[in-house]
């Protein structure tokens, strides 16, 4: 397991402990049921305890393997050498998606136009030959952005943001 995978594992285990803590705290405050023996908080609290124990086991396993031997290279049986990972691109895409959803939520623009702009920005951000891909990017953004607007509004008669 690589460094990043180990960090993700640790992060998930810690998140699970926090989440379990919340369920234990909230569960203890729930009133017991009148007509039933265990009430609404018992099962969630039981699950929360089990989750905490499992998280602790994962954290202990991580700590033990980190101390036991030096980190080994990540082996990927099907991909050959591990591909280069582009975290900046992931974070930029996440930010653009968050902005896209915020703009849709604010009602600042019609769904179709906002989607065309978002798709165009994403296509070009992910492309390694932006100038060459530009015609395709524009065409696809227009077709899918305006097409989805039409399909959802007029064919599926669904509300859009």
């Amino acid at each position, binding site marked *: 397991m690589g460094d*990043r*995978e180990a960090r*993700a*594992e640790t*992060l*998930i*285990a810690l*998140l*699970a402990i926090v*989440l379990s803590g*919340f*369920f234990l705290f*909230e*569960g203890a405050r*729930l009133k017991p*049921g*009148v007509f*039933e*023996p*265990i009430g*609404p908080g018992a*099962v*969630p609290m039981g*699950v*929360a305890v*089990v*989750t905490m124990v*499992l*998280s602790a*086991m*994962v954290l202990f396993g991580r700590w033990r393997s980190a101390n036991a031997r030096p980190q080994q290279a990540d082996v990927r049986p*099907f*991909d*050959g050498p591990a*591909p280069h*990972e*582009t*975290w900046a*691109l*992931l974070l930029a*895409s996440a930010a653009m*998606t968050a902005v896209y*959803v915020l703009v*849709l*939520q604010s009602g600042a623009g019609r*769904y179709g136009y906002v*989607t065309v702009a*978002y*798709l165009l920005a*994403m296509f070009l951000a*992910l*492309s390694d030959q932006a100038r060459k891909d530009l015609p*395709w990017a524009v065409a*696809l953004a227009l077709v*899918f952005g305006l097409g*989805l607007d039409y399909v959802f509004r007029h064919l*599926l*008669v*669904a509300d*859009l943001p």
Partner: protein
Amino acid sequence: MDLFQSFLYLMGPWPLFLCVLGTGLGIIVGAIPGLSGAMLIALTLPLTFKMVPEDAMALLVSMYTGSITGGLVSAILLRIPGTPSNVITVFDGYAMAQKGQAGQALGLGIAASFFGAVFAWFALALLTRPLADVAVRFTPFDYFAMVLSALVLISSVSGTSMVKGLLAGMIGVLFAFPGLDDNTGSTRFTFGMWQLTSGFDILPVLVGVFGIGTVMNELLRPRARFERIAYAPGGMWMKLSEWKAQAWNLIRSSAIGTWIGILPGIGASVGSLVAYTVAKNLSATPEAFGKGAPTGIVASEAANNATVGGALIPLLAIGIPGSVLDVFLMGAMQIHGIQPGPLLFEQHASIVYVVIAACLVSSVLMLVQMVLMIPLLRRVLDVPRQFVLPLILVFCVVGVFASSNRMFDVWIMLGFGVLGFLMERGGLPLGPFVIGFILAPIAESRLRQGLMMTDGDYSPLFTQPLTLSLMVLSALLLCWPFVRSYRLARR
């Protein structure tokens, strides 16, 4: 509508078009490494709202069948399994392709997939009704024990660590608790948000974990290119004598796949692994496996397709999904106001028979479309990811919003996407998470219902025969990794 009428219904222009479309899309998505049938079905769910339930289920079942098979193309030609269920096919499929027998490997895989699917269909058609009749007599404790064993079972076979599998399952269970408590009528665990009064909707969670999470993983390497093996068309058809040599392997692997499909919670990838291992152990030439043995491809592909029909049996008869993909079908049924389980035959018989009929129709379509689409699939693998990934994100956003008209659900979907991404990075399998999320309400309500009936007495958990055997099975599965590591340490 009975089974025969369901076949006639599916031969109508619109349902047949949906079956062809669903199978074709399933094959294409299954063939593209990184995309999965689960993601395709999750993205399609919102589009089925306007359909009648029978058409919606025909479309989704067809996608299910197609996606399990499509992955064998990239497994054989690229050495990358299109879906996890095709991992085992890589071992011998790619080796055969390297020897210049790619066409033969593809032919073997397609034909074995078809045989496995049809074999399992007979089990589906023959066993579902009797099992549903038995399931009507299950007690609430039986149901609780069944869900528990499903969760333990899937945790024990998903990923490399049982602890991580269980943790993933428990996190899924926790997220199922917020919302209105049916027994008391009060709300709980809503994080102070009124939008969570009805809990987390199925769609944002499933689309988030499988759609957004997958895209985030793929965004880490959007320009990845795959090494392709040379492939000359032709040579896909084997002689009858060669098939005769595979007959027993086909039947055995299909039976294994069907049985593993029936077991709650585990699906195609485990089915193909077990069938492959059995075929290798029984082979006179086990050393040939992994070096281009046709028997290996036949075992893997027959079994993984047989799990489709097998996994539908517990879903339709008991209301317990047989695999992760069945969770999506269960979610689709619930969205259409249909609760899978023993009463399904009484309340919505037409749905059951359409699902069963669609399983066979899509298997036949899969055979035809796979043969016809091989050249197209090789081109699909070339579609640049920078165009595919943003489109998936847009479909996720619009699909989830259209399902509830709430931007809140879109944010929930993005949140679960990040969770799914982190879980995959940390090696926590997503299967137990969604199984836990979808089955936890059933387990909790049945346990509380049972305890109300017995006035708080837990003893039926350990005295009723079916409940006891399931509890013992769960305990054995939980203990096995510790026993195994203890035995290894002693050696």
